[in-house]
């Protein structure tokens, strides 16, 4: 009986080792969105390209979309922009842009210069929709299904690897249902 007790520290060390090892390589800054499985929050915001046109969450109805949160003040958004253009043009992905806490003129110049991957651009200068979505660091990219339900959030730059590994399977899965 006493012998067995001698193994207690070893067992504890192994358990602790497994727990700590499982944490290696995980990015603690990446949080799962609280909105997974819930509809996109309600909003009424104007179109980035047309001040007079009001957009609501109905823009997500009908087909799977990516919702990309960006701003001209965000250096990482510039990094991923070419990949978004590639996704929109080569892969035919429907991307809705959320111009977050930005200036309309700056944003339009940016899209003019770097290309516009967004089928719809929502202009959110005060960050109200961003706040309701729980955006804490641009760029963020959400997968929204055809019913307007949030399915996934990726925080950080979207590139080919992130597309292939994280986003594409979801877009395909939710795309099949419609």
């Amino acid at each position, binding site marked *: 009986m006493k012998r067995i007790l001698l193994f207690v520290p070893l067992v504890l060390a192994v358990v602790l080792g497994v727990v700590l090892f499982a944490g290696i390589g995980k990015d*603690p*800054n990446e949080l799962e969105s*609280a909105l997974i499985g819930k509809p996109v929050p309600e909003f009424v915001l104007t179109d980035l390209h047309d001040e007079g046109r009001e957009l609501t969450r109905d823009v997500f109805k009908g087909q799977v979309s990516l919702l990309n949160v960006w701003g001209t003040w965000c250096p990482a958004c510039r990094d991923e922009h070419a990949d978004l253009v590639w996704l929109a043009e080569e892969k035919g992905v429907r991307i809705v842009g959320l111009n977050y806490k930005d200036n309309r003129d700056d944003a339009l110049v940016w899209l003019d210069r770097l290309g516009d991957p967004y089928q719809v651009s929502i202009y959110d200068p005060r960050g109200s929709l961003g706040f309701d*979505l729980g*955006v*804490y660091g641009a760029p963020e990219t959400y997968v929204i299904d055809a019913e307007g339900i949030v399915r996934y959030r990726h925080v950080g730059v979207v590139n080919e690897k992130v597309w292939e590994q994280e986003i594409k399977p979801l877009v395909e899965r939710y795309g099949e249902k419609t």
Partner: protein
Amino acid sequence: MLRSTIALALLFMLVPFALADDARDVYGFESQAQEQRFQSLISELRCPKCQNQNIADSNAPISKDMREEVYRMMSDGASNEEIVGALVDRFGEFVRYKPEVDSRTILLWATPAIVVFGGLLVVAGIIIRSRRSDQSEPALTDEERARASRILDGDDSDRSSG
């Protein structure tokens, strides 16, 4: 000399501005109790961007938005639970520094109690065992005692046999 003294004096006059933390926004409160409630709320909420700070200390824009939302909801007469709940709905359970007790967090809350209880059990076990051995096994039997006293008295004849 005079010029440098003036420069130094001017520099010191800037100190209050440098110390003024720009995380402190100016919010008006009806009473001190309200202000204390606001302060305790924002110190219990965690910034999602700068993860080891509460939103009271953080300068991140998101923390400012969160403080504003807390203030706005407070002004609208929302309860503390409603305010924290509204932020949890957006940012997830993560923003609570004091997580709710539920099936996922019960271990988190219970671990200290379990560890203390386990420690008490170990201590109790040690005490009980030592008491029991005191009672059931006296250090020396009467025979051993007699032998020991013979040895101490200088009678060496017993030694070899032991």
